[in-house]
Each structure stands twice: as C-alpha cells, then as structure tokens.
C-alpha cells in the first residue's frame, strides 16, 4: 500500500467501495514509520487511536454510510500543536512530559473530516530554526540524502510526506517553516493567509506571524486539507470570519491571462545557479500556458531579515515567558526560591537557539531600546506590506525561488546563526505581510536535490494561488519519491 501513489479523494472512494480498508492503510503507514525511523521524523506515534479511528471509518463504509472528505487519510501533526492526552513537546526538553488537556482546532477539524492522525512530528524547538537541527529529540534527516537537513522548522512533517509515512501533514509557518522544508524535501507546502486558519492549540512563537498549513504530495490534496482546517474559530480572535471558498474547486481553471510577477530582488546575489535556472524554467511554463510574465519590484526585501528577527523574537520572548516550571513541563530541582526556579528551569529546559531568540527579543522590547528596535521594525514591516500591495496592482501571483539553495548538510550552518537567518530571505516577507504562499517542487539540482518554486498571492486570495500552483504542477510533472525510498521495499 504505497501512500505516495494515493491521493485523499481516491483513497476515500476506495474505502467507500471496500476495495481497500482504512485499517490496512493505517498499518501500512505505521510499518513505514518504523522502517524509516532513522530519519527521525516522528517524536510520538499514536498507533492505538489511529487504528481505532480507522476501524470506525471501515465500519461506516461497511454500512454504506457517506464518508467524510478526508476519510482514511493518514495525516501527521507537527509536535507544536496540542492533542488532548497525547504527549506534545514542541521539540523542547521543557515540555518533555507535557500531555495537553485540549486539542488544537485544526486537528479537531481534520479528525471530524475522517483523517487518521498517525503521530506527532519532530521539529525545531518551539518552531525556531530552518533545519530541524534545533530539536531536543535529535535532528531529522532528509530522505533525498540522509546527510542533509530536511529544512525547518517543520522538518518532520515534510519528511513524513516525502518518505510516504503519511499522505499529508500539518506544519506551522512563521518565517518559512512549512515552505522551506517542502522545498528541501520535494513536496508541496502551503502557508495560508494570516488569519485563515485558527491558531488555537498551536504553541505560539510569533503571534502576528504564525499560521498552520498543510504539506501534501499534490496541490489538490493541500487544497483539500486547507478546506477542512480553514475558517473562523471563536477560540482564536485573530482568525478571520472571511468566507472560506471552495478551495478544492478553485484549483480548476486555466491560467490564461494570469499575470505572474517576477520580483528582481529575489533573483540576485546569493541565489544558487541550479535554483535560479529551475525556477526560471518553471516560470517559462506559465508563459507557455498563456500567463503573462510581469517585472515587479519589492524594494524593501533587503530589510526583511532584520525586521523579522526583531518582530518574531520580541513576540517569542513574550510567548515563551509562560514556560517557567509552574503549570506544565520540566521544573528544575533544588531551587530555593521562585525566581531561582524560573531561572534554572528555563536555563536547563531551553536549547541555545531558543535562548538566543528570547534574549534578542527581550532586548528589542526593553526600556530605552523599544523605539529603536521593535518600534522601528514595526514601521519597516508596514513598508514591506505596502510593497506587496503595490506589486499586486500589476500582477496576480508573484513567483520566486523558495530558498536560495537546495538542502544543506547537517551541521553546516550550526556555528553561524546569522548565516542561517539570512537563508530565510525569500520566505519571511510573506509572513510579515500576512499573504498566502505555497512552495511546490520544480526540479532537481545537479546533485539530485529537490528545488522548490514559491508562489505568493494577495491576502485571502487562496483560490488564485491554488489555481496557479495546480496548473504549474501539472506542467512540471515532478517525480516526488526520493530514490532511496523507491528502492527500500
């Protein structure tokens, strides 16, 4: 039962017609997770509840009941989203034994749609990182080359889908943490518009930037998952009550007359030659399909990294203040006073990258520095958002590489945090502006590593984005199974 060969719609039909059982698909996924355990994609597997849910689907099918849209689909959840009674670590030692008392809305909605939640995936600690090397539970390995990173922070989710351990996965994206691993692992990764998907139950990193989104093997499946999780949630006041359109239907239709904007700032220095050439080839496909290529400019792109590393870290310093040993998780022993307990718990419980960002954010917000740092960053953020609004005056989607390079080697950027931060350059702008963005594979580098192209659209214009991505995907015909996975029986 090869999960990479199934899509969510056809699986539902196969289960409904009793040609395939949900339980057999589930066991096949669990078996696969076991066989590829050296990739370290999962922190927890939820075998019992998954089999139980699969049995429910099979019983419904046996009775001839109509099955929900994602019935039987094996979905993995990044370990920074809570599930009641299931260990949730956020990739951190400080939550090593945390069992939440509630479930994230996005996960609830998936389960209500018949999805089988197979486990919690490994990630950079508190979603802080671009390589999944910052997890307290060991790094995740790229199935295309196990000496390389899968990207981050949602590396485990990307690998789960890339290696056929799940059909879809949820990740979170604050500065590219869905799109960049999707690019490095050769799968589709989608960051919805800010406010499109409820953040209730997503352990917060940067509250004005975070969004939950799907990984999948196809734009069609990403759209199906998005349709299930999107929409207003009374538990998240930042979730929008804007209408949830029929995302699955919106992928249909051609791209004749679609204006594709190519921003010159994303094609300059630091861009790997293979990435540049594969992205440009993909854009030519748009032209062949009748789209119009338009030169645009996003002039404040060069300021995005400093803005992001002030805004995101400031928000993180506030959001992570709750991890203090009082209410959940790790508590340092032998602390004489409350203050000592806080200081030691956080010192021992947090990893280096998390501490670094908390420090930076605390500094940016501290008295005397607030205006010069956080205040300034908020103003430049407004300029970046304005850049997008201006650009969308002359185009409908913007096309860029997702990352400046293909997957780098484990340990390669470990000693240079600033270099790691600079590699987020193409993805962070969409989080700052709140616009939706998708990465889909557009080819392989000369050394056989996946390359992703990113498409960006206007706020809440997921339909145009999905239609553009779906058409491009069909034209590109990318073979998304890593060779090593194909060979292993």
């Amino acid at each position: 039962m090869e999960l990479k060969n199934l899509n969510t719609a056809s699986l539902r039909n196969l289960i409904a017609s009793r040609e395939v059982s949900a339980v057999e698909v589930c066991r096949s996924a669990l078996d696969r997770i076991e066989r590829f355990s050296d990739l370290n994609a999962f922190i927890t597997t939820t075998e019992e509840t998954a089999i139980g849910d699969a049995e429910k689907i099979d019983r419904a099918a046996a009775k001839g009941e109509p099955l929900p849209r994602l019935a039987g689909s094996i979905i993995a959840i990044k370990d920074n989203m809570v599930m009641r009674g299931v260990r949730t670590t956020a990739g951190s030692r400080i939550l090593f034994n945390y069992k939440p008392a509630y479930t994230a809305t996005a996960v609830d909605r998936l389960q209500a749609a018949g999805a089988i939640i197979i486990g919690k995936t490994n990630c950079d600690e508190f979603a802080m990182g671009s390589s999944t090397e910052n997890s307290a539970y060991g790094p995740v390995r790229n199935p295309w080359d196990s000496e390389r990173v899968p990207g981050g922070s949602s590396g485990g989710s990307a690998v789960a889908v890339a290696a056929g351990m799940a059909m879809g996965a949820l990740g979170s994206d604050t500065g590219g943490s869905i799109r960049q691993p999707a690019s490095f692992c050769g799968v589709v990764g989608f960051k919805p518009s800010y406010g499109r998907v409820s953040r209730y139950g997503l352990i917060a990193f940067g509250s004005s930037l975070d969004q939950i989104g799907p990984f999948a093997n196809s734009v069609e499946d990403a759209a199906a998952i998005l349709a299930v999780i999107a929409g207003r949630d009374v538990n998240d006041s930042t979730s929008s009550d804007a209408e949830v359109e029929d995302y699955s239907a919106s992928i249909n239709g051609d791209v004749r007359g679609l204006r594709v904007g190519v921003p010159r700032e994303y094609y300059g220095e630091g861009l790997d030659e293979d990435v540049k050439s594969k992205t440009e080839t993909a854009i030519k496909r748009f032209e062949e399909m009748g789209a119009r290529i338009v030169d645009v400019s996003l002039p404040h792109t060069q300021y995005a990294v400093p803005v992001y590393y002030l805004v995101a870290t400031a928000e993180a310093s506030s959001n992570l203040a709750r991890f203090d040993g009082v209410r959940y998780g790790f508590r340092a022993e032998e602390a004489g006073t409350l203050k000592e307990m806080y200081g030691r718990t956080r010192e021992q419980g947090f990893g280096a990258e998390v501490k670094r960002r908390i420090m930076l954010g605390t500094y940016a917000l501290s008295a005397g520095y607030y205006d010069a740092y956080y205040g300034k960053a908020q103003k430049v953020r407004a300029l970046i958002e304005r850049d997008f609004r201006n650009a969308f005056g002359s185009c409908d989607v913007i096309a860029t590489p997702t990352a400046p390079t293909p997957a780098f080697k484990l340990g390669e950027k470990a000693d240079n945090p600033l270099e790691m931060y600079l590699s987020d350059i193409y993805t962070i702008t969409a989080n700052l502006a709140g616009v939706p963005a998708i990465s889909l594979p557009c080819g392989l580098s000369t050394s056989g590593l996946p390359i992703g192209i990113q498409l960006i659209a206007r706020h809440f214009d997921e339909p145009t984005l999905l239609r553009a991505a779906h058409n491009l995907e069909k034209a590109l015909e990318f073979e998304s199974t890593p060779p090593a996975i194909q060979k292993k029986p």
Partner: protein
Amino acid sequence: MPISKVDVEKIAELARLELTNDEIESFTGQLSSILDHIEKLNELDTADVEPMSHCFTAGSDTQCARRDDVTRPSLGQRLAVESAPDNEAGYFKVPRVIGG
C-alpha cells in the same frame, strides 16, 4: 551597536534565564553580530510611517475581533492544574516567593 557582557547579563535577568559564563560569552558575540546587521534598518526614514502590529490593519475589511464580555465554559480548575510538576488542592505549588 555592539552589546556588552553587562548588557547580556541584564537581559538574561529580565528573561529569567540563569545563563552560564560560557553562554554569556558566546551570546555576547552572536547577539552583537546580529544587532550589527539589524543596524541596516536605520538606512530608512520611517518618520511618516504608521507601525504595523497586525496583518488585519493594512488594507483589509476585517475589523478588530471583539465579543461581549460574557463568561463561557472553560478548562476548569482540575484540568488546569493536572499537568503541573507539583500541585495541591487545586493550586499550583511552587518554592517560596521571597528568597533568603
């Protein structure tokens, strides 16, 4: 603007992180180089720009989300304290607040 060890110690105190001496050393260097790069923002004149704190404020029709101040069912005390490293009688239990 480079950051000094004393600054780093003060920030660590604010952030309730009991850093080791090695960490203070290495963070001083790393934060300095990051803050150096951040200086770039001063190339821009933003005197007339409204700060953006939220993605809904700019060009969107969605209003700031409010609801009536009415109590709704929530987690409840039992569930709220059950994950605590130490709890007693429905309270979180911690070391004494005022130290020696």
